């Protein structure tokens, strides 16, 4: 059952509906903080995107869709947009595909399970920037442990690979680090889904002679639908927003070769001081996230109503 589900039930057989005004002293501070930190920047972003703005940030009056025109004239935009889609799709699908068996594994009963779960929380708790920097060190050309391991295993002879600077590999390295930091959260959401499956359903099907694979595919997996959906949506947003990994490892470079729409907008605004088009891209990014958020709200509403 969901948190709101309980809250609503409790509330229903209690007091009659209060006025919004009497709620204000209690929820007012939260509202104010949200307005200040989320709503204001969003409105400001949209407003600036319709305004002519100098590189120093001085506003020079209404500009219509001028900033958007400037943005779409940028020859790099199309490649970056396509790369962003690939980035989000690759990271999220690999993450979910790996998290499914991992959740199943740490749901098994074995000695030391607690410690394995704790170990899997570490990348979730640690700063993403710091984790990225550590991976950078591991993948270093000559002093990194990864190339050393490949050589010792006989998988790499002759020239070691420069994973971070070789344009053939650098994007994959980013994907790899993003998957690494996304798996823990995803696995724990799926684990929570697995744990919410009532034991008697599983036991009943065992009695009926179902094997473990059948039980997983026919009973557990369909019941995991909700957890999977939510994990996927939250991951979509997180991975799209993912800034620290790219910034720490490649800064989107060389050139714009590993930029996503998020790092590109940042780079235009704060490195190249090309404010106008960057606000237009900011609005597009915002709209994209808003769309996924609306989907999320719909999905969770359905589950809230079920409860």
């Amino acid at each position, binding site marked *: 059952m969901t948190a709101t589900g309980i809250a609503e039930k409790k509330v229903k057989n209690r007091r009659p509906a209060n006025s919004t005004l009497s709620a204000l002293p209690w929820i007012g501070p939260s509202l104010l*903080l949200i307005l200040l930190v989320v709503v204001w920047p969003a409105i400001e972003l949209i407003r600036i995107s319709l305004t002519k703005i100098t590189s120093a940030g001085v506003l020079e009056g209404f500009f219509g869709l001028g900033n958007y025109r400037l943005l779409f004239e940028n020859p790099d935009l199309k490649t970056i947009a396509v790369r962003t889609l690939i980035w989000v799709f690759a990271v999220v699908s690999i993450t979910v595909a790996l998290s499914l068996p991992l959740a199943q594994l740490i749901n098994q009963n074995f000695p030391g399970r607690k410690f394995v779960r704790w170990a899997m929380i570490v990348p979730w708790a640690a700063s993403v920037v710091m984790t990225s920097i550590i991976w950078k060190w591991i993948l270093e050309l000559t002093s990194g442990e990864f190339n050393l391991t490949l050589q010792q295993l006989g998988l790499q002879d002759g020239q070691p690979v420069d994973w971070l600077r070789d344009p053939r590999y650098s994007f994959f390295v980013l994907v790899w680090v993003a998957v690494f930091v996304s798996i823990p959260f995803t696995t724990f959401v799926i684990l929570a889904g697995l744990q919410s499956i009532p034991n008697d359903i599983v036991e009943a099907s065992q009695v009926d002679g179902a094997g473990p694979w059948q039980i997983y595919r026919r009973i557990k997996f369909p019941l995991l639908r909700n957890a999977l959906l939510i994990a996927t949506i939250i991951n979509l947003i997180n991975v799209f927003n993912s800034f620290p990994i790219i910034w720490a490892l490649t800064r989107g470079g060389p050139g714009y070769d590993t930029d996503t729409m998020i790092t590109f907008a940042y780079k235009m605004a704060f490195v190249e001081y090309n404010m106008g088009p960057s606000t237009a891209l900011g609005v597009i990014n915002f709209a994209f996230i808003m769309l996924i958020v609306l989907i999320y709200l719909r999905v969770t509403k359905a589950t809230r109503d079920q409860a």
Partner: protein
Amino acid sequence: MKTLEKKNEMSAKVKKDKVKFVWTPKKAATAFSAYMIGLFFIYPYINMLLTSLKPNEELYAFPMKRLPQSWQFDNYLEVWSVAPIGNFLRASVIVSICATLLVLVVSVPAAYYVARNRFKGRSAFLLLVLATQMFSPTALIIGIFREVKFFGLLDTWAALIIVNAGFNLAFAVWLLSGFFASVPVEIEEAAMVDGCTRFQSLRRVVLPVTLPGLVTAVIFTFVSTWNEFTVALTVISSPTRQPISTGITTFIGQYDVAWEYLFTTTAIAIVPVVILFISIEKYLVGGLTAGSVK
């Protein structure tokens, strides 16, 4: 929800005591692969700790060695004078504590009221909160930068505190309203019959029994503020006011990547928050998915 969980846990415990774990080849294989995977997820951090204990000349030695040949525990003493990490840590501690306090002060009344009352706009408020949880400051960073500038708060900790509190508010409101709703109203009514006001009954009756929820909200906000990168990178410009998350990146250019010191710093920054985060494992998923999974 909570009582059900407890019941499940209890029956699981009873089962565990009754059925002793018996090793079979299949179970051994399961356990072994789980241990390997556990190791894999902490591997980078082990690498970090080992590197932080190497002397500089060993970092680029050829052929390289995985373990330090001479263990340089002094790195952890020297780093404080090599880089201003005292400053970085102070900034992170102050910003994270203040953001956490702000979240508590703002979210507790809201969560309590939402859990106990029906009012016009209640679900709209909850939806707004849920939507903010999905937004990260990254996509809004240009708007945030301009707003902070408008209020004259560029390069201040106040800006970091307010922005971080705003984006972590949702987790606290959702988690706490679930906890508050699970406290029977009768207990509170009894307290009010005894002459407690609404606020007193919240403080003296509800908050003590929902302590796990409060601790979870506190730790979650603290850790995510501690790790926040993008806003700090954009808003803070003076090196002396950097928190640790952006401070360590100044390491890279300025000190010609002294990896051993870089990693002593990240170890100091990572280990405490990992321990904190592990301590709230049980409630993390519920808070982050607004209870829709668990």
